[in-house]
């Protein structure tokens, strides 16, 4: 069928606006990358606006020499790995029984869990609890209070329910225990949803700063995001400037470059994972929306 004139105009504007939106999203990201690779002088003067000018990796060298950033990075890796493992195990432990139709009391338990979405004690009672448990300023405070997310339990349960019943029933008739059914039949079929869960939780851990802000006091335990906050938002970079031994103006300049480089370093793992993230995340949103 031929497109009418108004339709062709519509299509043109449609492409035009979508391209503008994509450019608006991508430009700040490109700018940060280019600024991190440029001589900071040109960034401050505004001469660098798209591609790197006077290419240099100076800023990255300074980032990787900085003790605080390295410690923060390692801490975040630890919190992310341990936290994600616990999260995924807990999500499976909750989702599998709840997916079974012959699991008595599942409606009640589900309500018990979903209730916490709508009613929570809030910041202060939770803080007092953590304090009473002696978890303040420990490694585990970054892991245990967020051991599992309700929404992810729902996603995983929905996936488990989509596995054909007959598979599990025939195993049961063969005298398979529930543990073995979960381990040998259900989990091997659940790789896609486990991947989604790993990514959901890992991105959450990597990016969170709130938990650390409230519960941690020692700088050596800080995750990368809190260090980033000190550098980017509070402008605390005295120790970094001292180590450089340059003139005041040069210091100001290298601080500027360092800010852009540290933005990139903080997002490096996410950038490398992005192709997977995108595919699996979209899948996760779809599974979730079926029941949501």
């Amino acid at each position, binding site marked *: 069928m031929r497109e009418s004139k108004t339709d062709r105009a519509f299509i043109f504007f449609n492409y035009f606006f979508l391209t503008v939106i994509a450019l608006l999203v991508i430009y700040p990201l490109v700018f940060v990358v280019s600024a991190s690779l440029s001589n900071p002088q040109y960034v*401050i003067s505004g001469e660098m606006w798209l591609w790197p000018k006077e290419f240099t990796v100076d800023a990255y060298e300074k980032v990787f020499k900085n003790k605080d950033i390295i410690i923060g990075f390692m801490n975040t890796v630890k919190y992310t790995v341990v936290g994600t493992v616990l999260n995924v195990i807990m999500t499976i432990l909750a989702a599998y029984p709840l997916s079974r139709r012959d699991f008595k009391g599942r409606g009640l338990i589900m309500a*018990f869990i979903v209730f916490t979405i709508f009613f929570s004690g809030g910041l202060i009672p939770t803080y007092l609890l953590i304090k009473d448990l002696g978890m303040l300023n420990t490694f585990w405070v970054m892991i245990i209070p967020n051991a599992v997310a309700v929404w992810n339990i729902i996603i995983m349960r929905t996936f488990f329910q989509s596995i054909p019943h007959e598979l599990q029933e025939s195993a049961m008739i063969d005298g398979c225990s529930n543990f073995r059914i979960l381990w040998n039949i259900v989990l091997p079929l659940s790789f896609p949803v486990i991947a989604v869960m790993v990514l959901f939780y890992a991105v959450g851990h990597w990016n969170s700063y709130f938990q650390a802000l409230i519960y941690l006091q020692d700088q050596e335990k800080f995750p990368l995001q809190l260090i980033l906050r000190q550098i980017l938002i509070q402008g605390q970079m005295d120790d970094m400037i001292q180590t450089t031994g340059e003139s005041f103006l040069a210091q100001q300049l290298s601080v500027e470059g360092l800010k852009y480089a540290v*933005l990139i370093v903080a997002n490096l793992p996410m950038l490398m994972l*992005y192709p997977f993230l995108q595919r699996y995340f979209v899948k996760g*949103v779809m599974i979730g929306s079926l029941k949501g």
Partner: protein
Amino acid sequence: MTNVSENVQSVKKLEADERKKAKRKARAKWWKSIWQNWELYVLISPVIIYFIVFHYFPLYGLQIAFKDFIASKGILGSPWVGFKHFERFFDSYYFWRLIKNTVGIGVFTLAVSFPIPIIIALMLNEVKSLRYKKFVQTVIYAPHFLSTVVVVGMLLLFLKTDGLINQAVRLFGGTPIDFISEPGWFKSLYVFSDVWQTMGWSSIIYIAALAAVDPAQHEAAMIDGASRFQRIIHINIPAIMPTIVILFILNAGSVMAVGFEKVYLMQNQLNMSASDVISTFVYRSGILEAQYSFSAAVGLFNSIINFIMLIMVNQIAKKVNETSLW
């Protein structure tokens, strides 16, 4: 006559016996199936313990909002004071400022951040070239994976008096604006950076809903001479309306639940008059100043308002649109 009534009674008794038996049987079966699946209860028990400790115990701890919490006396031992903390909050001079800022940011976000993903999904749905569509999606989903600290850090770098934006302002002959410390700019910066970060990701759910539209409807409309725009208005939008309503309820219900994370990072001494919201206030007075009972009361007030909002919007949606959460 007596015979009949006796008969009736014996029949009733028989029935009752039968029912009792059936009940006993059912109960035995119930226990049996629990016994059979004992492993499932073992599996889920750590999760239940987690929820009791980290979600239900804080709910119990909320009673300190009505008490004068003294750490050495514990939650139970602290004396009751009724609504004292609530009254203090309502009477304080910052009460209306907090409400104004919280509602203002919430409503502004809802008004801008909510419709844009719908428009983007409708536009992407009209794109025929799959490669172009994929490209746009890959780009606009990306900011979703940046952390709040990174987004605010970028915002500050771009908006400094000698940052990218002000250089452009100067280029066009304007005078640089101190966006970051100017209270008047706070809400716009908050909302539009939020749009930048979330519009792509939020559009996914609508794109999925649009994929389910029956192409036969479009073919029929095309034969009747409907333009693309008309088909969007009359076919696509009605098709995704239930999704829109559900998400609107959820979003409108959280209008007063303005998140702590981003506001706190964007906050500074100079823009406080526009940027202080309930959640940052609770953090300051509770965690930093250790006024536990008072800030627990403020937090409780906020969650009650949130819950009322959710129920209200849900009721309205039910009446108007016959779609609702429950």
